[in-house]
């Protein structure tokens, strides 16, 4: 600070600007003190007050910063409680942000830690919520009651309230999708055949390509997947799991009877998947850029309409393929199919009822008035407010038909899905990263909690092509393609926290590195070379010591089955 003074006096030219800026950096603390003052008064009064107050909310998700009361929902909730939120979202590297938060010891009042949970827990950033819930949280107890063992930490405390507590049963998403997508014109060409196995899927692509090597002067691309960017490499490595009829448990398959977790890396499943890709490549049906294209290049291909089949999770590409929808040619659009290795395997593309306990919202040690925050959360969790947070206001953002079903017009649905409208209304801020009903929840009156899960709403979006396709397969919704999910008490195993720098975490990283190195080699290998590269891969894999990892996950899975989450 010595420099500062010295500079101020020696550089007279700058003084004007300096004062101006010093002015604005000093102004703000004043503004904040007001809230601080309020906090103090509430602290002393025993009752939870409804005086206006603003708390700091910080989320490690992505969104635009906002003052909650500037949104419709935030304003309504403020009217009920007097509480407003200054909502901030992480920009840049989350791990760095959490690191300096912990180092500095200053936290916002509440944090949604996403991937930073274990670090923040380790640092003792969160306060236990047990007593607060007991005292102020009747609705919290109603919503999370069934999940108490899952939200309770090993030390017996509850630190965060997760976002996936399903209430009143379990409603399936009407438009679930698998990871295997096929262009609709291929299905149309062959009269909408049943496509169930990987061989059938690839075979259909091969037949179509043989018939139409190019369309509109451009060569068709047989098959493509998203393996060119290191961060998305799981797209290609996850598939043996799904093809073998398992849901996304990360890098293990959990046996339904013994509950043993086994890696599918280096398994026969993986070999089969790679053999198929290798065969596709030798037939020139696999895009040569599979391992080098970046995301933009990948999306450009998908939206060109030249690709016959591709593999990725729907959420990886967002709405990029909407281009094709907007173009109005349903034949060029894609549909996801329940592809597995063999007819005998039941697909598991629809997630089983699951509870993700490592995502949630917690109150930090810096919060001066946890009681009011808990009250606010409890108030959010009334059925009425949950409807507000997902559906909005009756007759404004949704309507109710004679049977009491919630419906949306095309326009209302467009608003519900429009990012800008979602922000101003507040859905973008309140429908996730807060204590809430899980996505598969149902209201007392039988309506779906999430609008897109309401079949009446989902149907509004179907194009004529959609309806024709569904009709051809005799289905009502796209979820009809898939088998009903099977209960898996531990699901999802990927949410099992691995300690920082633990052998499990290092194994994970090394295994991933190994796959990244060998997948391209095996896929592009000649038929004769494949076997020897595979053996080399297995040899490298055996050096990693997978037994410890499997043992670790198995133990955690068994713990979960016994209710120790």
């Amino acid at each position, binding site marked *: 600070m010595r420099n500062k003074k010295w500079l101020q006096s020696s550089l007279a030219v700058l003084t004007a600007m300096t004062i101006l800026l010093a002015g604005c950096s000093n102004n703000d603390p004043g503004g904040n003190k007001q809230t601080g003052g309020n906090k103090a008064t509430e602290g002393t009064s025993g009752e939870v007050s409804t005086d206006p107050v603003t708390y700091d909310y910080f989320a490690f998700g992505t969104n635009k910063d906002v003052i909650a009361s500037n949104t419709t929902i935030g304003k309504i909730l403020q009217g009920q409680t007097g509480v407003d939120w200054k909502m901030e979202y992480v920009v840049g590297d989350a*791990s760095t942000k959490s690191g300096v938060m912990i180092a500095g010891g200053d936290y916002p009042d509440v944090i949604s830690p996403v991937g930073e949970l274990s670090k923040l827990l380790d*640092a003792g*950033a969160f306060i236990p919520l047990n007593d607060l819930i007991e005292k102020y949280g009747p609705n919290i107890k109603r919503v999370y009651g069934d999940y108490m063992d899952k939200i309770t930490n090993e030390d017996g405390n509850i630190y965060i309230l997760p976002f996936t507590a399903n209430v009143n049963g379990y409603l399936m998403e009407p438009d679930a999708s698998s990871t295997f997508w096929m262009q609709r014109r291929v299905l149309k060409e062959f009269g909408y055949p049943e496509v169930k196995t990987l061989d059938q899927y690839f075979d259909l692509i091969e037949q179509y390509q043989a018939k139409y090597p190019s369309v509109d002067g451009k060569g068709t691309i047989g098959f493509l997947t998203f393996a060119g960017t290191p961060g998305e490499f799981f797209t290609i490595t996850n598939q043996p799991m799904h093809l073998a009829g398992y849901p996304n448990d990360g890098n293990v398959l959990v046996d339904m009877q013994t509950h043993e977790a086994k890696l599918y890396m280096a398994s026969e499943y993986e070999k089969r998947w790679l053999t198929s890709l290798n065969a596709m490549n030798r037939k020139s049906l696999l895009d040569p*850029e599979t*391992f*080098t294209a970046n995301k933009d290049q990948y999306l450009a291909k998908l939206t060109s309409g030249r690709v016959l089949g591709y593999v990725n999770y729907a959420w990886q590409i967002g709405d990029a393929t909407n281009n094709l929808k907007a173009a109005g040619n349903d034949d060029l659009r894609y549909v996801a199919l329940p592809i597995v290795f063999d007819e005998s395997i039941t697909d598991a593309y629809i997630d089983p009822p699951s509870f993700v306990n490592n995502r949630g919202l917690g109150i930090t040690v810096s919060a001066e008035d946890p009681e009011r925050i808990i009250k606010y959360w409890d108030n959010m969790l009334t059925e009425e407010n949950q409807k507000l947070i997902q559906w909005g206001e009756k007759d404004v953002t949704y309507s109710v038909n004679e049977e009491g079903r919630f419906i949306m017009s095309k326009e209302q649905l467009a608003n519900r899905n429009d990012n800008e409208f979602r922000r101003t209304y507040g859905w973008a801020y309140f429908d996730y990263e807060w204590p809430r009903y899980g996505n598969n929840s149902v209201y007392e009156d039988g309506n779906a909690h999430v609008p897109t899960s309401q079949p009446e709403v989902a149907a509004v979006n179907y194009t004529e092509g959609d309806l024709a396709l569904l009709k051809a397969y005799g289905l009502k919704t796209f979820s009809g393609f898939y088998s009903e999910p099977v209960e898996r008490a531990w699901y999802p195993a990927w949410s099992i926290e691995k300690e920082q*720098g633990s052998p499990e975490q290092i194994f994970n990283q090394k295994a991933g*590195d190994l796959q*990244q190195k060998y997948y*391209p080699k095996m896929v592009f290998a000649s038929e004769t070379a494949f076997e020897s590269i595979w053996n080399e891969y297995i040899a490298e894999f055996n050096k990693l010591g997978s037994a410890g990892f499997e043992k670790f996950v198995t133990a955690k899975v068994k713990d979960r089955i016994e209710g120790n989450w």
Partner: protein
Amino acid sequence: MEKHAVQLAGSTSEDSRLKTLFKTLSKQKMLMLMSLPFLVWVILFKYIPLWGWTIAFQKFKLAKDLFDQTWIGLDNFKSLFQEQQFYLVLRNTLVMSSINLVLGFATAIVLALLLNELRKVYFKRTVQTISYLPHFISWVVAANIVQTALAPEGIVNVLLLRLQLIDHPILWLGVGEYFWGILGVTEVWKNVGWNTIIYLAAITTIDPTQYEAAEMDGASRLQRMWHVTLPGMKPVIVILLIMNLGHILESGFEAQYLLGNGINVEFSENLDIFVLKYGMQMNNFGLATAAGMFKTVVSFIFLIAANNLAKRMGESRLY
């Protein structure tokens, strides 16, 4: 810090010499006034945070105080040096930064010389300004452009096919061996204009009478560039070279990360990416700090060696 203090003390061990020093210093009050506040600054902002190096000897947990940490001796260094991958990434780092160093210097110097030879001032200024534009593009964007250009249907393959230099498109980023070359060229393309600026500034200090004298002697354009302009830039070149040799283990990070993929990983992964994967992403600050210390040691070795070499060759030096 202590090291220098010791040095200083050593050189003034005798009382008389100490006295002369203080005498000189008292005469140089103004120089001290002009530099010592910054010395305080550098100690505060650069040397005091060095306590962070203790992290390299700990199983570091963020929330704990320095004294509550678990001390694990040299374990972090061991896990760094015992990792087989470490030597591969070290090789990649050294190769890539050497390529960048040589290519970066050569191209920037040549471009500065050539720009200096342009006769039309406005053309010269326009070229200068445009050539430094890519510096302002983030690596994400730059990498994207490179990837698009190098795609099978990208401009590079199209051109080479037209010129019949190749008969089928090459998957440039799909051949590990090409990676270093691609990276080197990309770095040059992105930074050559920017790197030239400092040499252009250096050229301005050259006394114009030298050119006149050279011309009188009948020197050609190339001879003047070689005998007048280049020597005029030499002090700056040497200083920059010494400084950059100290950064021999910094080969950049984003470019490798963004252009890297499963196929070229054996060539693209460098020390920084390795540390990111096994250190930062796992919150293993100990490993990351150990790697940082290793880099510092290597830097100092190169720096001191280069500086001594310059000294012995009678060139300008860093200190």
